[in-house]
């Protein structure tokens, strides 16, 4: 099984073959993403209002999957970076770089929707509850990662540095999560209530999972598209280099 995976990934290390695969996957993946999203929103529209929070509880169906994608995105970057550095697969760097802004945007969506969701309850636009705070730190992790890619001019050097950061940063994420949770229990003022999720029975669970699935496929579609763009960009750059060298 592992050998088969190795063979497949080695086969697609060739950018041209990857582009062929990507072209075949592109349309179906996007179609699936949009279909799931449409279906998910449809189901969400028919979810009954929460007796406490009213209709605003429906923001949860965007907030929670976005937070899931924030974490999934960084895990994706971690595994892509390991693939690139340790197994020396050239598309690992491309995948990690492509996924980063997508993950960052999902993180931002999670933050904004979290704030919007909580505002009617808290009377304020932000509270430092454990989950929101962890997601905020995760947002800065994404920013640092993207900034590193941008700041280093030489592309292969930038790729290596970013991969190192992704791997070490990933180790840090559980530590941050644990610390923030502990910090929150230490300082819990009585007036702050955590973003209480309504009981997860079927009416809420299925739409949530569908939205989660939709976001996941959307993430993959976006990342695939960005990977295609990056491979094309590299090809253009290589052609320009060759041209400049001869000319």
């Amino acid at each position, binding site marked *: 099984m592992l050998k088969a995976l190795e063979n497949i990934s080695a086969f697609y290390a060739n950018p041209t073959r990857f582009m062929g695969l990507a072209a075949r996957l592109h349309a179906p993946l996007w179609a699936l993403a949009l279909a799931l999203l449409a279906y998910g929103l449809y189901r969400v529209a028919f979810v009954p209002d929460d007796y406490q929070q009213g209709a605003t509880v429906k923001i949860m169906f965007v907030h929670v999957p976005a937070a899931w994608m924030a974490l999934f995105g960084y895990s994706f970057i971690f595994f892509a970076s390991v693939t690139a550095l340790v197994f020396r697969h050239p598309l690992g760097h491309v995948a990690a770089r492509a996924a980063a802004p997508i993950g960052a945007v999902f993180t931002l969506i999670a933050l904004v929707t979290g704030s919007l969701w909580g505002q009617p309850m808290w009377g304020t636009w932000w509270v430092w509850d454990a989950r929101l705070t962890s997601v905020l730190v995760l947002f800065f992790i994404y920013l640092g990662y993207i900034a590193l890619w941008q700041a280093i001019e030489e592309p292969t050097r930038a790729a290596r540095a970013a991969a190192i950061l992704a791997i070490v940063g990933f180790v840090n994420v559980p530590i941050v999560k644990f610390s923030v949770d502990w910090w929150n229990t230490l300082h819990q003022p009585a007036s702050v209530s955590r973003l209480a999720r309504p009981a997860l029975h079927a009416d809420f669970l299925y739409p949530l999972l569908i939205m989660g699935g939709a976001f996941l496929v959307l993430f993959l579609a976006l990342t695939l598209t960005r990977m295609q763009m990056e491979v094309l960009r590299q090809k253009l750059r290589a052609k320009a*280099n060759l041209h400049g*060298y001869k000319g």
Partner: protein
Amino acid sequence: MSDVLSDAEIGARHGLSAAAYGDARELRVEGLACTRGAALLFDNLSFTVKAGEALLVGGANGSGKSSLLRQLAGLLPVAAGRIEMAFGAPDQAVHFLGHADGLKNALTVGETLAFEAAMAGCALPAQIIATLGLGARDWQFVGDLSAGQRRRLTLARLIIDPRPLWLLDEPMTALDTQARALVDALAQAHLAQGGMIVAASHEGLAFAQSEIRLGQAMEAGA
């Protein structure tokens, strides 16, 4: 000097009598390729430098002279091919004098030399400042030295720490006639003891017996 070659294989070496240390010391490079970022600088480079020999690496700017030296020093990874150093690993057997001189302006000459001695793990030779022709006192700060004096100071480690292979990147830059004579003398003495030198320069070097040129293979339309 020797044949200038139109491809990347080294040509005839002028026969040198084997030095006392002879055959164990040899730098052998086979099929070496070097990439800088995504660009291929050179490919399929092979040469051998035996004890007592000096190789001049020529070529236009950007042809990969410095990169070759960095590969030999182990600072840049090898894209393809092999480097064999029978006499030791780079961290013990190589002196690498690159473009940047590695000198610290805030230290004095004396402190710099003491640091060099500490890096070498041996005592500082008695008249080293005079040997280098530095013309400066040991309490003077490196930041106050002229460019030529700084280059002379970087040569200190060659005198203090005996290592078989010298990798010199543009050794004659900013040097006046006397300083060039110093470098020549140091090089000849090193070679006479069975050492090896690989030097990159866009001008000729008197102590080099053989030469390779980088960059022409690429221009020929690879």
